[in-house]
């Protein structure tokens, strides 16, 4: 049986739209109906606006009828993580602090997607202010993993991965500060790409840790990721950290580049804590690449053991400052009974932020404090340089690194109540953010219990086209992408 429309990849739907076999309104209606049917169980959305989505779809159909279709995303419903601004729509960061906030402007990626003809569909749940690895830190409740509703979808972009896996969107955007696109993609069996730092504008992305945050796509296929990346990448004068680089046609490059490549296996990423089923799936993927003529070489990233500490100093330091603006003065939650300005700060922030956000603000404030700055923040920046150097050293021998995305498959909701246990979910992904590199997660099988496993490919700076091509070679030789969760 052919897939329902809402399970089809962008590339296929594009052909159907192009031949007017289906309209964008029909496709969008299908996605809305699917969402209505399943989201009570998946809870991937914080909010959606059906009327607005259908109006966008109708406008898309009108453009197509007038011969003004804008490209492969024309008429495709795309869901956005609720940390990416859409003019006139809520922007909550899954926080009580912004529960009633409506953003007056479009993020650059939103404007680019609209410009590419996409239908912006819904605000997707995440960990509060993107802080977490399970989407359990949302003030609006956790999202469930469509493959097993008692399990987490990963995080922080868990709404983005779950909605996609459940057929509630054709593609989604997430944000990745320490693995927040790749890990939920792995846990939900979809493709997730974190671009090189600076490739995609952060303007309109609620900042968690500015020097680590990147927006990226979650998609059903590698080709779809190439299409989405092509739409959102490129220099933005509104983001000083966005890079002035030429953006290749990823969709063409992903098919043109065939390898073989030299792949590095970092030995530090295959140690204690790695689930045996995940390990086995990744080993099989390594074996596949070998059969494709790729040279497989063990490499070392000797500073890996410092990644977690370095990350939690830099990320929390930046977050403590980035989140200072949520003070109850201009917008957002304001405590009702505050007496004066200082009281507004204390009460509004005490009421508006959840425990994980508070924990990170306190930690970040501490590491920046007078007398501690040199020992923590400055030292962490120095170690960060060493971590990046590890990767660059490895790239003298290999084109990319191959690792598991997450040490474990999706775990039970509520299972990891200790914050430190949750932080360990990111051990294979945070080094990439510290080093500013591109990386993607592509499905590489299932556990015996039917949970998806993800393979991570880490590339050289701005080598997204290579990375996507490598992933596609694997994807096309396997049929993991054709499986969909059956929701009870």
């Amino acid at each position, binding site marked *: 049986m052919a897939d329902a429309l809402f399970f089809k990849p962008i590339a296929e739907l594009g052909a159907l739209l192009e031949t007017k076999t289906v309209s964008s309104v029909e496709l969008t209606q299908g996605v809305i109906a699917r969402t209505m049917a399943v989201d009570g169980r998946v809870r991937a959305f914080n909010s959606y606006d059906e009327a607005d989505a259908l109006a966008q779809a109708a406008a898309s159909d009108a453009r197509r009828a007038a011969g003004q279709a804008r490209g492969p995303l024309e008429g495709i419903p795309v869901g956005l993580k609720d940390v990416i601004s859409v003019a006139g729509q809520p922007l909550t960061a899954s926080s009580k602090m912004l529960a009633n906030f409506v953003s007056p*402007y479009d*993020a650059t990626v939103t404007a680019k997607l609209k410009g590419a003809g996409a239908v912006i569909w819904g605000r997707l749940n995440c960990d509060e202010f993107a802080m977490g690895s399970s989407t359990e830190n949302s003030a609006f409740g956790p999202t469930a993993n469509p493959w097993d509703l008692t399990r987490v979808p990963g995080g922080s972009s868990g709404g983005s991965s779950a909605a996609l896996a459940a057929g509630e969107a054709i593609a989604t955007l997430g944000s990745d500060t320490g693995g927040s696109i790749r890990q939920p993609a792995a846990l939900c069996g979809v493709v997730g790409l974190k671009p090189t730092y600076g490739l995609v504008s952060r303007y309109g992305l*609620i900042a968690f840790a*500015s020097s680590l945050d990147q927006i990226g796509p979650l998609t059903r296929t590698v080709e779809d990721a190439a299409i989405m990346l092509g739409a959102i990448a490129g220099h933005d004068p*509104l983001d000083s950290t966005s890079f002035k680089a030429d953006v290749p046609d990823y969709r063409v490059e992903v098919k043109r580049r065939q390898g073989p490549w030299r792949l590095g296996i970092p030995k530090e990423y295959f140690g204690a804590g790695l689930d045996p089923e995940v390990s086995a799936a990744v080993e099989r993927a390594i074996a596949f690449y070998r059969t494709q003529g790729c040279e497989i070489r063990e490499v070392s990233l000797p500073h890996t053991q410092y990644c977690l500490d370095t990350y939690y100093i830099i990320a929390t330091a930046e977050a403590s400052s980035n989140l200072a603006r949520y003070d109850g003065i201009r917008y957002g939650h304001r405590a009702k009974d505050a007496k004066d300005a200082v009281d507004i700060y204390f009460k509004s922030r005490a009421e508006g932020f959840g425990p994980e956000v508070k924990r990170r603000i306190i930690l970040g*404030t501490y590491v*920046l404090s*007078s007398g501690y700055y040199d020992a923590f923040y400055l030292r962490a920046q120095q170690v960060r340089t060493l971590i990046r150097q590890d990767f660059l050293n490895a790239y003298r021998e290999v084109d990319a690194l191959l690792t598991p995305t997450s040490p474990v498959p999706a775990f039970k909701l509520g299972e990891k109540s200790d914050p430190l246990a949750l932080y360990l979910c990111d051990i294979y992904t945070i080094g990439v953010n510290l080093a500013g590199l591109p990386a993607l997660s592509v499905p590489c099988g299932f556990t015996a219990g039917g949970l998806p496993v993800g393979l991570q490919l880490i590339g050289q700076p701005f080598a997204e086209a290579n990375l996507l091509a490598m992933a596609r070679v694997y994807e096309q030789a396997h049929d993991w992408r054709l499986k969909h969760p059956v929701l009870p």
Partner: protein
Amino acid sequence: MNYEAVIGLEVHIQIKTHSKVFTRVAAGYGQPANTLTDPVVLALPGTLPVMNKAALDAIIKAGLLLGCEIAPVCKWDRKNYFYPDSPKNYQISQYDQPICLGGSVEIELPGVARNVMGEHKRIPLTRIHLEEDVGKLNHFATESLVDYNRAGTPLMEIVSDPALHSADEAFAYLTSLRATMIYGSISDCDMEKGQLRCDANISIRPVGETRLGTKVELKNLNSISFVRDGIAHEIKRQVAVLERGGTLAQETRDYDGQTGTSQSLRSKEMAHDYRYFPDPDLMPVKVDEAWKEKLRAECPELPFPKQRRFVEGYQLPYTLTSVLVWDRALADFFEQAVKLAGQGKAQAVGNWIVNDLLRELGASKREFTELKVSPEHIAALVQLVDTGSVLTNAAREIFVEMFATGELPGVIADRRGLRAAPTDADELEQWCRDAIAANAKAVAEFKAGKDSAINAFKGPVMKAAKGKGDPKRVDAMLRHLLAAT
């Protein structure tokens, strides 16, 4: 005991740019509350700063004018503190690598008399850095409201070494700094609009002591006179405390210029920990030699060097130069007029500008830019007087009229019949002889050495000349005849 004051000034000056320092919205003053805002100024979720190059140009130029070393890289830091006028609850500023280091401000202390040049000194600067201004809190009976129009206006902080030693020096420092910034078109420095704000760090120590005393920071010095008065008051207060055996607390005090009193705002214990760290949203900007050279070429001559040139080059008296050089437009006007009138006429040109032009300008309440007279007018008038075509008194009248109408002086002189009558030398001699003959007493006095006695003859001569006698010629003729008497 004799005490010496040690003063360092922190001056904040708003840079005059079209848009704010990190976003495109307009910068300005006096607009309806919260209209000069956008998502970036209001720190809405997801917004990012982007550097305004014009602000960086301006501060580099300021640094070049003051002889600072310009850092090869402009780097940004966040200064974290909570206050409702600060939308992000951090201020983008520069912490450990300010864009300008060192440099100095040349000052002139009051001379012994108004027409004598005072002592010149160079007050060394510690640093100048760029940051963003904050909004403004307005307090009402039961609530406070914030206006973010000012937030994000480019602001530079100019920090002097603790090298000033009196209220007069501080006054001279600010006067000179302000003129420099106006000269460089960096700021209008209007203190009423908050474009220039000053805090002073003041301590005293016994004369001869080299260690610094306990420092008090004085805030809210919102006019240059208040700076002088506030510092003088604080020095007196500190001396009084020590004289009666007390100790000074390190604190911040608020000066009230209206009452001339100050009160403690906060003590050192309450000092902030600003948790500075490099702003990850902004990339460091390289400042290369070519960039600096381009800005250096735009740097104007400053008032003190100009004054030295005017004194030496044009042989102008100090009093004239001290009026002319402090306004760049006025000084330029003067030099253009001299160019037209001739180098030798510099003093006459200067006199017309300083005495008559400024008087009429003040009375008219017009701006200098709205002048109807040009350097050509001044040069033409000087020439009319110089050739004897118009006498000084008549020239004054002509000036008033040409200031009001913009007509050329020759036209006015002809229309009003103010040209000097071509006096016959014999006629003049006869008038003078008559006047001398009529006043033997004055002749005797003059002969006895009382020079002013000569004035007694001038009235009758002028009367005979019906007001059109050239005073110089009359004086010369009288002296000639008296010598022969």
